[in-house]
């Protein structure tokens, strides 16, 4: 069957059919990305935290812009080559387009990878001011020593002997007792983890029998509760049983069956009570008014007494003891509730024991007080006074030093010089009031990674920084500095190392959507755009690798196909033309 209007235009539209199709599709794409850009606008305008302005390294974005623009030209040249029946040239241009697509995705992967390994921490301090300072950097490595204490491991040692090494953002908890909530039957992953960490040296055993009265024995009557519970049929798992997923499954099943039994008993009684009161008062009067009367309340109290002996009342929790106490290493995300003697896991399992020192070991490449300053200003406090109380400036390391405080003092020297220069510029231009040049919030409250490097090069010497700032010799990473291509590079630079006590770690995440709404929308839009690049490359690649047969039989059809694929490719370029300035430069 011949497909109509694949080469020649329809009379009514003046277009070949696939062109109508691609433009309809592109119109829907404009709306889709329009919606996402609107989402970006919404998140930025209403952000309740300082928006990460110009937060991305520009160079990878700039190169990717060149790559996409270049590929837009080559794809249109490929189409032109087909129109002129130059197969060889078509192949060359299409190959270049595909190479551009691969390069674009490769660079994006480099950028994503840098973000997946970059850690952010929002601090939390005890005291009158809640801190809200952010530290950014890379988490270092640690392991447990023979006493179960956390000790740092260097990168080299980790490479040589990776066993037991973890990234030093963990909760270390010496556990002596585990209590599982049977109403949440989702313990498998945790139990496996606990058993793996316990090995053969630690015994984890059930405290007391887990018994649930047998429903048939109960309903048959003739036995009191003590007899029912001590009956052989009631035993589910015996005292002293080793922790196992199978046992937990059995107990969970027994508990859930018992709970279903209890519910059905309650429902039966309730149904009977409703029938009774309907007969007593008539259907018209059964309303909220009726059930609040003493008559109903008395009936409910009577029912309650009658129900009790018919219920199985299975215990909702089971407790295991751990001998000797086991030092467990937990991911902070697994522990929604943390206290010194008790932690609660996400499946409601309660672990009793003793919280061990669990500092976060971080190589700090940036300090950000913008949120502290914002919250302080909202409450009418001097931002600098609030900042002074931050853990960043008040802590001391084991040598009694604080590199971050030194960096902050250097930054103040740099800022003083910037302010002076901006004042001079404003005076020179005769600017007054709000028109005068002033440092940005970033300038005032954020020590960026390249500033950290520059200050460190001068040994955090405040006077040297002040002098270098004044004569313009302070070396900050420029746009084309490859050593910081995708941001702070911890292989090229050594950054201040801090141990953040667990109680000061307020919120922590790598630079992924969890960290803030900026990264959420960044990954959403660039991820979707990346998928478009992949999709476009697949279609164009199909024309390149499987188009020869069509070229020989109907070259104009192939040219039309390439034009349609090319239109999609230009659209992908079009989206990036807006994405680049919005995400990288604003």
């Amino acid at each position, binding site marked *: 069957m011949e497909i109509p209007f694949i080469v020649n235009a329809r009379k009514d539209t003046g277009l070949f059919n696939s062109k109508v199709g691609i433009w309809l599709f592109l119109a829907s794409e404009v709306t889709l990305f329009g919606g996402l850009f609107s989402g970006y606008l919404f998140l930025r305008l209403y952000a309740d935290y300082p928006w990460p302005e110009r937060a991305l390294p520009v160079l990878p974005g700039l190169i990717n812009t060149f790559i996409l*623009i270049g590929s837009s030209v080559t794809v249109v040249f490929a189409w032109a080559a087909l129109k002129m029946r130059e197969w060889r040239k078509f192949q060359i241009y299409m190959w270049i387009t595909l190479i551009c697509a691969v390069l674009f995705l490769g660079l994006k992967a480099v950028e994503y990878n840098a973000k997946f390994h970059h850690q952010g921490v929002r601090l939390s301090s005890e005291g*009158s001011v809640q801190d809200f300072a952010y530290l950014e950097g890379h988490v270092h490595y640690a392991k447990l020593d023979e006493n179960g204490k956390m000790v740092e491991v260097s990168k080299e040692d980790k490479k040589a002997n990776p066993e037991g090494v973890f990234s030093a953002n963990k909760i270390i908890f010496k556990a002596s007792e585990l209590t599982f909530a049977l109403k949440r039957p989702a313990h498998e992953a945790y139990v496996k983890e606990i058993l793996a960490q316990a090995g053969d040296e630690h015994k984890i055993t059930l405290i007391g029998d887990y018994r649930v009265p047998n429903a048939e024995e109960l309903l048959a009557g003739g036995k009191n509760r003590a007899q029912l519970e001590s009956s052989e049929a009631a035993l589910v798992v015996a005292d002293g049983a080793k922790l196992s997923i199978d046992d937990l499954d059995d107990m969970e099943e027994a508990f859930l069956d018992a709970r279903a039994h209890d519910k059905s008993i309650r429902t039966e009684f309730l149904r009977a009570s409703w029938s009774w009161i309907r007969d007593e008062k008539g259907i018209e009067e059964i309303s909220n008014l009726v059930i609040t009367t003493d008559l109903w309340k008395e009936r409910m109290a009577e029912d309650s007494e009658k129900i009790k002996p018919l219920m199985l009342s299975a215990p909702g929790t089971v407790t295991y003891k751990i001998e000797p106490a086991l030092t467990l290493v937990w991911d902070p995300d697994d522990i929604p509730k943390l206290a010194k003697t008790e932690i609660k896991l996400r499946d409601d399992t309660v672990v009793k024991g003793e919280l061990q020192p669990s500092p976060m070991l971080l190589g700090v490449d940036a300090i950000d007080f913008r949120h502290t300053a914002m919250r302080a200003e909202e409450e009418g406090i001097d931002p600098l006074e609030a900042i002074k109380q931050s853990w960043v400036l008040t802590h001391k390391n084991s040598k009694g030093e604080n590199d971050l405080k030194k960096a902050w003092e250097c930054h103040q020297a740099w800022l003083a010089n910037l302010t002076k220069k901006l004042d001079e510029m404003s005076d020179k231009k005769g600017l007054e009031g709000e028109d005068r040049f002033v440092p*940005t919030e970033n300038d005032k409250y954020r020590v960026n990674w390249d500033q950290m490097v520059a200050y460190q090069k001068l040994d955090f010497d405040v006077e040297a920084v002040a002098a270098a700032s004044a004569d313009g010799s302070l070396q900050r990473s420029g746009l084309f500095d490859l050593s910081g291509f995708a941001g702070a590079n911890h292989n090229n630079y050594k950054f201040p190392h801090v141990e953040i006590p667990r109680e000061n770690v307020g919120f922590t995440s790598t630079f992924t959507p969890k960290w803030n709404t900026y990264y959420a929308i960044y990954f959403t839009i660039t991820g979707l755009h990346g998928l478009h690049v992949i999709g476009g490359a697949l279609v164009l690649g199909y024309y390149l690798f499987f188009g020869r047969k069509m070229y020989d039989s109907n070259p104009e059809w192939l040219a039309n196909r390439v034009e349609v694929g090319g239109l999609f490719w230009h659209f992908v370029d079009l989206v990036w033309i807006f994405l680049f300035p919005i995400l990288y430069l604003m």
Partner: protein
Amino acid sequence: MADSVEEIKKAKKLYLVIFGALLVGTVLTVAVATIPALDVGGHGFDGKDAVLGLIIASVKATLVMLIFMHLNHEKPLIYFFYGLGIVMAFFCMWLIGWSKSDPIQYGNSEKADGFYNPEKPASNVHGHD
């Protein structure tokens, strides 16, 4: 649309000119954002920088649409489709402005959790809020 060999040869020259213009536009965007001497408005990023950046991006996008996507000589139906998409995109942005009148989200500026409280120390000492 360029269909004859002559027209296509002519169009290819135009594509190269547009390629150059797009590169210049990109360099210009980065230059005004990163070189202090070229910064418009106040020091650092502000509204004027945003407007300038978006204007340059819009000019670049227009060039791509008109020349690479051949919208400079396209049929009315295509203008209708594309125009509809753009109208819908702006409609989405208009919705954002509309959301500001939401009294539940933006009507009450009181903060549930105060930042500064001299009486009470911070409770969130173990994180995971």
